[in-house]
């Protein structure tokens, strides 16, 4: 079957969980023969792939301290950084109309309309002069498919570098690893390019490549209730951090009271086993500290309560320093 209907939807929200929930909603409701182009932006967010470990891919604590969010998407692949200098697109279709080459052509044509030498590179990247401005990922459930990606227009590359740069040796995890790429903002080519210019170019290219006139979807036509339910799910700790992907974490650090080695085994985001070793003269503390971590949500605010649960004052102080240091590292 060929395409017989083009629809587009611009999200007015910059909340990543709302936007990912809207994407899922549109996927569930795309009609046979229809292709929806969904265009959206997230405020300061690291989005990790479906099968990735949050702590391995992102400096979660630093991101959250800066007011950013960590989100997990349904599609596979690696971690990306979104901010308001970045524009996201999603093509949502049924499987018989799913055509990665055609969909990518829409993006290329839009970008090329600014005189930028955009091309497809490999399966997942769109590049200009060998530098990636758009990373793409794919999801399929039953008969429903989507392709989505970023378009870097004026994203904060320093923040991207900071949040996505995690030292690899401390955390051993199953799951999918990100691949580092050379990236480029399109404003390097067109300094005064606005997000709204790219939105207009995408819509034009969508109609031209598919040979139909796109019609807008209105927000009132979507179920706020269903999207709200999805946003809660995508924003939940369980979805973002509680995936079953197990991992091992190890940290060695010199603290004021001695050198410490901490090892965690984490599954479903919960510390299943914890061992603390130290050269300090207090033989009791390491064992008690290890026990305290077992059963907690890894890296969560639950750790802030651990010092207060220790009986001795010296243990409370040591635990506070240890927890502070672990949070710093995650």
């Amino acid at each position, binding site marked *: 079957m060929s395409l017989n209907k083009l629809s587009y939807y611009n999200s007015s929200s910059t909340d990543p969980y709302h936007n990912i929930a809207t994407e899922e909603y549109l996927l569930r409701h795309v009609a046979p023969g229809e292709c929806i182009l969904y265009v959206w932006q997230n405020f300061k967010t690291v989005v990790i*792939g*479906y*099968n990735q470990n949050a702590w391995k891919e992102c400096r979660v604590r630093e991101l959250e301290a800066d007011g950013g969010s960590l989100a997990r998407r*349904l*599609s*596979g692949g690696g971690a990306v950084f979104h901010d308001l200098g970045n524009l996201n697109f999603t093509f949502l279709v049924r499987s018989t109309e799913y055509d990665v080459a055609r969909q990518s052509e829409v993006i290329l044509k839009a970008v090329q309309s600014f005189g930028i030498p955009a091309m497809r590179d490999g*399966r*997942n990247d769109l590049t200009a002069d060998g530098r990636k401005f758009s990373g793409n*990922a*794919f*999801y*399929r*459930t*039953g008969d429903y*498919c989507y392709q989505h990606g970023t378009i870097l227009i004026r994203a904060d590359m320093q923040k991207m570098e900071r949040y996505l740069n995690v030292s690899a040796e401390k955390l051993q995890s*199953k*799951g*999918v690893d990100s691949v580092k790429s050379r990236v480029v903002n399109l404003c390097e080519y067109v300094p005064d390019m606005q997000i709204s210019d790219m939105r207009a170019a995408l819509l034009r290219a969508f109609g031209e490549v598919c040979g139909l006139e796109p019609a807008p979807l209105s927000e009132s036509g979507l179920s706020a209730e269903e999207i709200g339910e999805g946003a809660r799910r995508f924003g939940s700790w369980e979805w973002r951090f509680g995936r*079953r992907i197990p991992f091992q974490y190890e940290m060695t650090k010199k603290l004021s009271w001695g050198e410490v080695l901490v090892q965690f085994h984490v599954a479903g985001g919960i510390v299943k086993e914890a061992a603390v070793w130290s050269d300090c003269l207090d033989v009791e503390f390491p064992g008690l500290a290890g026990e305290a971590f077992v059963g907690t949500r890894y890296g969560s605010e639950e750790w802030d309560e651990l010092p207060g649960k220790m009986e001795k004052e010296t243990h409370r102080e040591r635990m506070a320093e240890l927890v502070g240091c672990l949070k710093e590292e995650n």
Partner: protein
Amino acid sequence: MNFPKELKYSKSHEWVSYEQDGTVLIGITDYAQKELGDLVFVNLPEEGDGVTAGEALGDVESVKAVSDIYSPVTGTVAEINEELLDAPQKINEDPYGAWLIRVENVTDTEELLDADAYEAFTKEENQ
């Protein structure tokens, strides 16, 4: 493309092997692994979990997409192929050797195809 005669096949591209001990092995077909491309991760249920005919039992991530895998039978997961969690590429290398789960207490089965019918079905899908 390989379609072993001794297996049964679902239209969502899983294979089913009826074992002598009454359990059932489930995997994905050679056609499916070729369509998916190189696999990088596989999510499987846990031992003791229930699976339902026609519903997702897990999913696989390939370089192309994350895709659900559907269970052709209803029953209880007796065993998972843990080797695949560290080496999902084994599904690409040997799709009929790399079973995903073993199911016991099978109470219901989807309509399954034999090898010839499944081969014909994949040819139709590719048109």
